[in-house]
């Protein structure tokens, strides 16, 4: 286990090369590369703002005082941008090993670096969403707090990518043996999008009378719920409705670590079969 980690560390340059290659390929194909990748989440944000905020009035879950520091629109942007990254991880995870089958079957490297490179690429892309987020913060008058920037932000990023890496390790190997996983993931991704309260404050569900208590507990057991609440708590720290509950916080910390453990265990367990199958 330790020697394996060391081997991965020794190959960090290879991970860097793969990440750089993916970014290069992605952004050089069109002149407006970066602009295009930002346009999609922005267009979606506008649609969601109109449908959920204006028509369905999902913004009623936001406390009154948040209006002056960005309100529902900043809430949406701060959730959709990281979700976009997570969705991209989820959709590319099943192919993380398959796309590199030629390299894997000819080069002796620790196989972990391929899922690692996929997640690494997404991490850089996530960092690239920050200029857009900052723009929104400035224009909407968002007020970052010390609590948000020093506690919620690092926690959200670390947990999101821990969870993402575990998921990628898991899906990339299982998908080699059972190719239907790829299809399944697409459906699950949709469900998680609504299950993680990206478009409305989670408090709307947790205070709703129509939702039974067991369902509320189940809802908070989704580690992603807490993670995305943290992403938004960066800008709305101090509002109780917008910070994760103790249960959601615990399940996101434990869930992320558990996902990484399960993912890596599965990866090592299936590695031999995967190499034969590729």
């Amino acid at each position, binding site marked *: 286990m330790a020697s394996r980690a060391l081997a991965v560390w020794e190959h960090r340059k290879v991970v860097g*090369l793969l990440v750089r290659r993916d970014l*290069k390929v992605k952004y050089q194909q069109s002149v407006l590369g970066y602009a295009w990748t930002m346009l999609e989440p922005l267009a979606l944000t506008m649609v969601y703002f109109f449908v959920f905020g204006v028509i369905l009035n999902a913004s009623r879950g936001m406390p009154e005082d948040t209006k002056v520091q960005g309100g529902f629109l900043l809430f949406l942007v701060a959730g959709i941008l990281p979700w976009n990254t997570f969705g991209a991880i989820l959709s590319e995870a099943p192919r993380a090993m398959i796309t590199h089958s030629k390299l*894997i*079957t000819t080069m*002796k490297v620790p196989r972990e670096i391929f899922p690692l490179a996929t997640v690494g690429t997404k991490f850089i892309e996530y960092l690239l969403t920050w200029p857009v987020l900052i723009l929104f913060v400035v224009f909407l008058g968002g007020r970052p707090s010390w609590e948000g920037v020093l506690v919620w932000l690092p926690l959200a990023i670390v947990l999101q990518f821990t969870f993402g890496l575990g998921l990628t390790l898991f899906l990339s190997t299982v998908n080699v043996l*059972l190719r239907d996983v790829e299809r399944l993931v697409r459906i699950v991704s949709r469900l998680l999008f609504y299950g993680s309260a990206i478009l409305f404050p989670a408090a709307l569900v947790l205070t709703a009378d129509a939702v039974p208590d067991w369902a509320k507990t189940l809802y908070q057991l989704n580690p992603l719920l807490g993670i995305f609440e943290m992403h938004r708590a960066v800008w709305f720290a101090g509002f109780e409705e917008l910070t994760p509950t103790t249960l959601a916080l615990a399940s996101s910390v434990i869930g992320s670590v558990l996902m990484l453990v399960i993912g890596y265990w599965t990866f090592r367990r299936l590695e031999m079969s995967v190499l034969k199958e590729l």
Partner: protein
Amino acid sequence: MAHTTYGAGLATGPVIEAKGLGVKFAVNRRRKRSLREMFIHGTKRDPNAEGDEFWPLRDVTFEIGRGECVGIVGKNGTGKSTLLKLIAGVLIPDEGEVHVHGKVAPLLELRAGFNDNLTGRENVYLVGSLHGMTERQIDERFDEIVDFAEIEPKFVDTPVRHYSSGMKVRLGFALISQLEHPVMLVDEVLAVGDKAFKRKCYEAIDRMLANQRTMVLVSHNESDLRRFCNRGLYVKGGGLALDTDIDAALAAYNDDTKAKIAEREKRDAERKKRAERVKKEQAEKQAEQDKDGDGGQTA
């Protein structure tokens, strides 16, 4: 426990050691195993363990010393490439161990790692670094690589997807032949490009061999094998049948092939004979029926 280790290059002793090497493929496993079983038992307990498993290689033991060039011969599907993959460390053995002392230059799939959307230059840097070359080394040798691959300068900065398949393979060979790894694994890639380029490849390989490097070559081309190798491993039916000099290995392989061909000819001849006999019988029957028919008509 089966494993593969890669140590630092040693001055003495064998460069490649294989002990009781075996690898197992399960036939039809994917359809028949449930997800639950796969997770609980992993690869160890297979429900079809008895009937459907198949060992492309088993119980293979050999040592290869520094500077040797070993040719692996055998029929298609006897596990030659699998053996090469085990040495390269890209397949994990189910039984036994492989130890390789020193880095391996795999000439298994020459285009591996090339990305169609990147230019020739970018690909050389990418794949070169993936194989462990430093940027300075590539800088120094870049012109040599491009020159060897016979890529015209105007195409160096064109995306590789516009290259012909020959250009890609030539670039791949040119790059990998620049690696200074002490062990080279070659799988049927000597038949690359046109005649002129082939000659250059041979010269490049001769140069590498002269440098006290170890090479394992899988090929069906006898002249290639005779030209480079001083030792031959004959793989037959998933096991190592012979470990001698290349001429003896090839002779044994050819004898077996001849025996096989003779057997097939004999079988073919028998089948023909049988077919003829059946035909004759049918003809006789037909004739009898015709006669009966005639009789019926006249009656």
